[in-house]
Each structure stands twice: as C-alpha cells, then as structure tokens.
C-alpha cells in the first residue's frame, strides 16, 4: 500500500469518526437555525412565470 493510500485510509477513518460523533450528538452543519429576520416580508407567492 502506498503512502498516499495510507494517508487516505487515515483520512477516511477520521471522516467516519466525525460522522459517528455527529450522529451521536445529532449535529449537522446544514440544520435550520435562527429566527425569521424582521424584514422577511414580501417574499411570498409563486415564482412560476
């Protein structure tokens, strides 16, 4: 196994471990957060042309 592959294997292990921690803590960088802004009006209705 080449040095690159070894490093990539360690990297994948890190990704899997991070995923395990994220699953355990229910974490996601894509989760919804924050209240609606005070100026959030007027953006309704269909965008269909």
């Amino acid at each position, binding site marked *: 196994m080449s040095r690159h592959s070894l490093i990539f294997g360690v990297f994948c292990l890190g990704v899997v471990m991070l995923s395990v921690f994220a699953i355990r803590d229910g974490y996601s*960088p894509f989760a919804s957060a924050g209240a609606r802004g005070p100026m959030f009006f007027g953006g309704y*209705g269909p965008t*269909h042309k």
Partner: protein
Amino acid sequence: MSDDTLAPDNPAPTPEALTAPPAPPPSTVKPVNCPNCGGTVEIRVAGTTVSVICSHCGSTLDATSPDLQVIAKADEALKTPEIPLGTRGVIKGRTWEVVGYQERTDEEVTWAEYLLFNPYEGYAFLVDDGRRFNLGLLLDKLPTSNWGLGLSADGQNFSRFGDPYPVHTVFVVGEFYWRAAVGETVQETDYVTPGTMLACEDYQGERTWTRLDMLEWGEAETAFRIAKRRKEYSSPAPHERSPYKSQLFEAWVIGVIAAVTLFLVSGMAGSQQRIASTTTDAVLDGPEKTLVIKDVVLPPGRSRVEIDADATSLDNSWVDLDYSLTDQKTQDSIDSYGTAEFYSGTDSDGSWTEGDRKPTVDLSSIPGGRYDLVVTLSAHKWNGAGSSSSAPVTDTSLMGGHGFADGGWGSSSGGGVTVPVTVTVDRGGVFGGNIILGLLVILIWPIIVLFRHLGFEKRRKAVLSSGSDDDDSGSDD
C-alpha cells in the same frame, strides 16, 4: 552458468560476494591505435565486434581488419556518454559492460542507446529516453499474431502503438556487432503492453525484434553509478505503467469501505422518535396565532430535533411558522422558522403547481432537558401579484399540556377561511446531509487520482493523437 568473469567495477559487497569472492578476471581489453588520429582504441569484445568508433576522433574503424582500416572519418567533437564506455553494472542479476553508445532520433524525440555486453548472455541495450531506462534484449523467437489484435511474445500480448516511423542514428561511439554509423536509418514499429515494448526494426530487408523492459526508477542509475533521476511523469513512454493505477485501485477500495462503514454507522443510529404532535387551525389573513407544545423532553446529551408542519389543505396561500424551543430551566430558546405554501394556476403551458405544504425544520445538537415549543402561525391568502403581509401581533398565553393557545381566534372567528395545520416534533435519526457530505469528502481523493491517471494516459497516448488518425491502439493499460 556464471557471470563471474564480468564483475562490476566497484561492486557493493553482497552476502554472495563475501562467501565466494570472484577472482579479478584477466583483462580482455585489446588496445590498438586509431589509424586516423593515433589515439588508443580499446576493443572489449574482440572477435564479435564488427565496427569500432574511435572515442578520440569519432572515426568508424573496421574491427574485422587486423590494421583497423578507417571506414569513415569524423571531425566533429565527440560527446561523452553519461555512462562511460567500459563501465560495468548489474541489472536483474546479470553483469553488463557498456561497450557502445549511440543516439537516435525519430525527428521529434532523441534518445540514447547503450550497447551492453556479457560474454555469457551476449548483447543487450540500455535505452535511455532522458527520464527512465529500459533494458532491451533481442528476441530469439518471433512474436506470433494475436488474432489480429496485436502480437504475442513471451506469454504477453502486445498491441501496436502508432504507425511505423523512421529512426535515424545521429551519434555513435564505441564498438558494435554491426557496422554502426551516423545517418543509419531504420524503420521502427512499436508494440506495447504495460511495462514492456516490442520494437520491430526493419533495415535493408532485415528485421530484428527487441524486447524493452522498463526498469524501476533508479535501478540503472544504481547499477552504473550515475546520478539518480527525479520521478516525473510529464511525458511518459508509450509502454510506461501509470503510477496512479494501483493508487487509484487502492483509493477506491478504501473509499468504498469507508462509504459502507458510513452507511452502517448511520443505520445503527436508530430511527426517529415522536415526542409530540398537535393540530390547530390558522385563519387566512387573520391575526397571528400562538401554539405552545409543552414538555418536550430530550434525553441527556445532545439530540437532533425535527419539527414538521402539515397544512395539506393549503391552496394559493401560505402559513408562516415561527418556532421557539425554550428550555424550561434556563429559558434559553432556539429559534427557527418554516413556511407552508402551495400555489396553483393555469397558463399557456397548462396547469402548474408550486410550493411545499409540509415544511420541515431540523434543529441540530439540542442539549438534553425539558423544553416548551412555541409555534407562531400566520396564514395568508395569495391574491395574485400583490399579497398581504403579516397581521399585527396578538397576545398569546401558554397552556398546560400538549395544547395550544389561539390568542382569541377560533377556527371560524372573523368569518375567515381556516386551514388546519398539524405540528409534530421528533427527535433522533440521522441528518441525510451529513451522509452526503461524508461521501463527497471521501470521494475527493479517488476522483483526484482518477483524473491524474486519465491525464497520464492522455499524455502517454499523445503521440498517437498528434500522429495519424487511423490508429487508436495502445489502449491496453
């Protein structure tokens, strides 16, 4: 059969050498004087050598005549080969001595060929393309046709690489078993398989086949004690193995294992658990309504919380949903929002629909504890281009249990149209985005290696694309 009679100049001590040291062989070099310049010419393979090129003046001498008659004079300054004539080295367990050197060109690329000699093995070639070395041995058996797909030799299949091309000798020095001379032109056809090339040379009705095996990086340099070359793959040889191929295989194997592990870990995380669910009516274009779902209990640690709204009866209207998950103990709140909306109509293309009646909000990494979820709903009717904004805030009051406060608005208050909205709260489960992100991150390296491999193969076959269009061979790698 042993090669002891031809040991390298300064061989590294090996266990074999320590146990059975070879006796220094008697010199077989026959010194003679060049009839053109008077310089000393050494004939190392007397008896087999046909022509000698004087290393002092470059004249081609006839080694078969006792007085070394001059075949051709040369006045140009001689180059010194990187590996000096007479140097000995061990390649693949055989000791070879450099007896001749020539430079050849196909009018685009120039390379060097060292003629090697071993009294037991005969002659071989060390071909130097400027990057890597190849060991060339003459085939003693003709290659056979491989069902019209190329050639077979020594149990390997070779495919033709490009069209035949002329090869000219542009420099020559040393001794050769043929009448080597500058200007000699042969017609060469290459057949390749990864790591090996079959070179077919046609010269004045005579055809020779040479098998060229690419040596490992540094192998020839170590054998002949010259400076090692840096690995670089900007212009690979036609038969050069892609250094990225094994790396690509390993990267994909590791990547697939990591991806499967990721899925298994995600599958073991368990499914979502319903914490609370309730339904209320929102009045279109009515005042805001506040709904409180009390006692949302999250286990110790941190959890994912998903809040779903379902307003399936929405039509050309929307409902703003503002959420506030408030810790009963600390009164810390986590705010979020969603919009349930649905629009439909007809235009020149036919009927259309748009919007999501079931918006979902995901809250990440919520600490364990007891919470209240405050939901503020504001429903509106869409009236074409102009639409109304949110109604003024109304007073709200919290109610015990999993009930809701309507701020004084009933389902039919004000005579407005009501829309039932169901709000559910779940905890646990896995964020799909995390899995996709993990897969993308894992894929980065295999894709980089794939592009490197494809780039290498493209450069390896570049000579084909720049040459004739009727040959697309060489794709055996």
